């Protein structure tokens, strides 16, 4: 194992991106992403990397500037959170439709109203239809590793799609953790210069951003959807390459003590660590509980999920976002939909929890497993809400 240093995860995210030799960063500050933006500015203003730092006047302009820069062939990065991500909402499907490999760090934070600066997944869920590759991180090391891998995945000629790396706001971005950074030489070897499919340059003019008439739009949509589904192959390949070079192997669906589990907890993001401690305690007490962690959210890794939950009787999905007036949390709804026809599938319990930064402890996970035993149906429930 290499040398580990203590660093705040948000700062580490910026350091990891700096290792990737980006050409342009366009960032607008928002709590709790601001440390990423500020440290990126420090790195560039100190001349540690050669990049253009565009201090845009809003998030809508930051994603627009990223689109323009990416179209010239530059490697680009941006970061945002919550309201900023919502402001980008209009442009996100355009970036993926135009096949521009922009990488974005998203510090997960609740969306207004009312205003709430603390952590949940309410900001990324409304973007699930946008066509971006969507990854979740659990700890600081994963933030470093996935931020670097995101560029390799996005820029792969078989993919050419933008990628968002989700980092739980405050819960993860502001934690100081022991982290191991790859060296610049190692990253250069893993991530060579970008070779764009097409660029904006007078030497070879192209037109980007045509409009579609009804007679071709369906075909264009299928092409984009197919590209996103096919990207999983590359994601798995890049995870495997990283594992070989750095010894840390990632999977699109992670499992912990899930093999013989009767009851499974499913999490996304940083609470996976807390959940794993809860699983350990419940196992000590003799209960067959396990943990499944979705690392890849889009494209949805349904085959890997099926394999992970095989044999379980109950799957407790931890949702940190709500679709008001709908079928429940986005993750549980998605899973129910995919597994609808599966024979012998587990009973799915949907808890909405950890909203707006409300802490979720080991005891909470144990309580939810208890509650799940008593639940008779598959409707969703707000865990811990004061009635």
């Amino acid at each position, binding site marked *: 194992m290499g040398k580990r240093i203590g660093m705040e995860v948000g700062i580490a995210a910026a350091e990891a991106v700096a290792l990737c030799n980006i*050409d342009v960063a*366009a960032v607008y500050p928002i709590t709790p992403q601001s440390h990423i933006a500020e440290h990126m500015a420090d790195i560039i203003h100190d001349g540690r990397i*050669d990049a253009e730092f565009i201090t845009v006047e809003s998030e809508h*302009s930051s994603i627009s500037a990223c689109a323009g820069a990416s179209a*010239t062939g530059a490697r680009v990065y941006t970061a945002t959170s919550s309201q900023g991500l919502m402001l980008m909402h209009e442009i996100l499907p355009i970036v993926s439709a135009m096949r521009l490999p922009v990488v974005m760090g998203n510090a997960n934070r609740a969306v207004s109203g009312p205003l709430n600066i603390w952590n949940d997944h309410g900001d990324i869920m409304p973007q699930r239809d946008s066509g971006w590759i969507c990854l979740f991180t659990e700890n600081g090391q994963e933030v470093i590793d996935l931020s670097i891998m995101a560029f390799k995945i996005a820029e792969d000629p078989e993919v050419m799609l933008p990628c968002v790396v989700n980092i739980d706001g405050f819960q993860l971005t502001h934690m100081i953790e022991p982290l191991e950074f790859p060296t610049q030489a190692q990253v250069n070897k893993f991530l060579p210069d970008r070779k764009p499919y097409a660029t904006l340059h*007078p030497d070879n003019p*192209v037109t*980007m951003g*045509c409009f579609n008439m009804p007679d071709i739009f369906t075909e264009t949509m299928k092409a984009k959807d197919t590209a996103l589904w096919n990207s999983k192959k590359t994601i798995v390949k890049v995870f495997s390459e990283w594992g070989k070079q750095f010894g840390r192997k990632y999977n699109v669906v992670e499992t912990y003590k899930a093999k013989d589990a009767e009851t499974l907890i499913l999490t996304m993001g940083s609470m996976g660590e807390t959940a794993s401690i809860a699983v350990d305690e419940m196992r000590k007490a003799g209960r067959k509980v396990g943990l499944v962690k979705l690392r890849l959210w889009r494209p949805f890794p349904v085959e890997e999920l099926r394999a992970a939950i095989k044999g379980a009787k109950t799957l407790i999905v931890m949702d940190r976002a709500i679709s008001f007036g709908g079928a429940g949390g986005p993750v549980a709804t998605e899973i129910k939909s995919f597994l609808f026809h599966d024979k012998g599938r587990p009973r799915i319990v949907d808890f909405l929890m950890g909203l707006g930064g409300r802490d979720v402890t080991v005891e909470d996970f144990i309580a939810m497993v208890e509650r799940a035993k008593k639940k008779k149906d598959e409707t969703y429930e707000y865990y811990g809400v004061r009635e």
Partner: protein
Amino acid sequence: MNTVQNFEIFAPKLVDRKEYFSAGHRACQGCGEVLALRLLLKGLGDDVVVANATGCMEIVSSAYPQTAWLNPYIHVAFENAAAVGSGVEAGLKALRRKKKIADRDVKTIAIAGDGGTADIGLQALSGAMERGHDMIFFCLDNEAYMNTGIQRSSATPFMAATTTSPAGIAIPGQRTGKKNVPEIMVAHKVPYVATACPSYPIDLINKVKKAKAVKGPAYIHIFSMCPTGWRCASEITIKLGRLVVETGVFPLYEVENGKYRLTMEVPEKLRPVGDYLKPQGRFRHLKPSDIETIQERVNREWEILLNKVECMQPW
């Protein structure tokens, strides 16, 4: 063969023959905006990258799988031409500095209509100009949201009829005057700001060349005649462009580092504004008293501009 430097005479056949916007585009018959676009692209020449906003020029030129653009071109959305242009400029700058692309000047330009400039696009434009990107922003102003069906914008002139400011019984047309975007640009300390009109093609092309030579932001506001939206005959497009200048409704001037200069010959007395308003259907509801009111407003604005020409010092 290039250009129109040192042209004191009006010799259109000497303008460079190379076209950067192909025929086969779907603009209306007699469209003044596409003519403005054609001329500004001629003025820019080679080595240009275009960032365009949603609007008439985007729709008539880029129905997949066809494109009328011969320059490298990108369109993203309606309100972000200046932001996309900022990204293009930064990308080209970084890549050239890092020796990943050829080491030669390539100018980034952003184009938008009056909506994409003065209304929904104002924030992005302001941000881009404040940051000082080496970029020319062109506003092709046909005085309404024409592409979506002639709805009013903040550039629609006082009392003009549009679909969202119709000449109704209670309220006769647009209630406010035209937002002065060139002045906003001067307030941003943009080194080169100019107004232009395709009825004065040599003047337009000269201004474009001046803007291209600026190492920093530049802004050109081009009056774009629209027979479809203004309800007038398609053959008088160029004539209307002359009338709008001769009546002082849209004066031609440039501001270099804060110093105002008229680029048109100043008549002793401006031509009566009624000459410009009468051929246009969007003004047909005006009573003689309305035309007088408009004449007073035009006179006042003209005076203010003349004052600026006389008094403003370069910063």
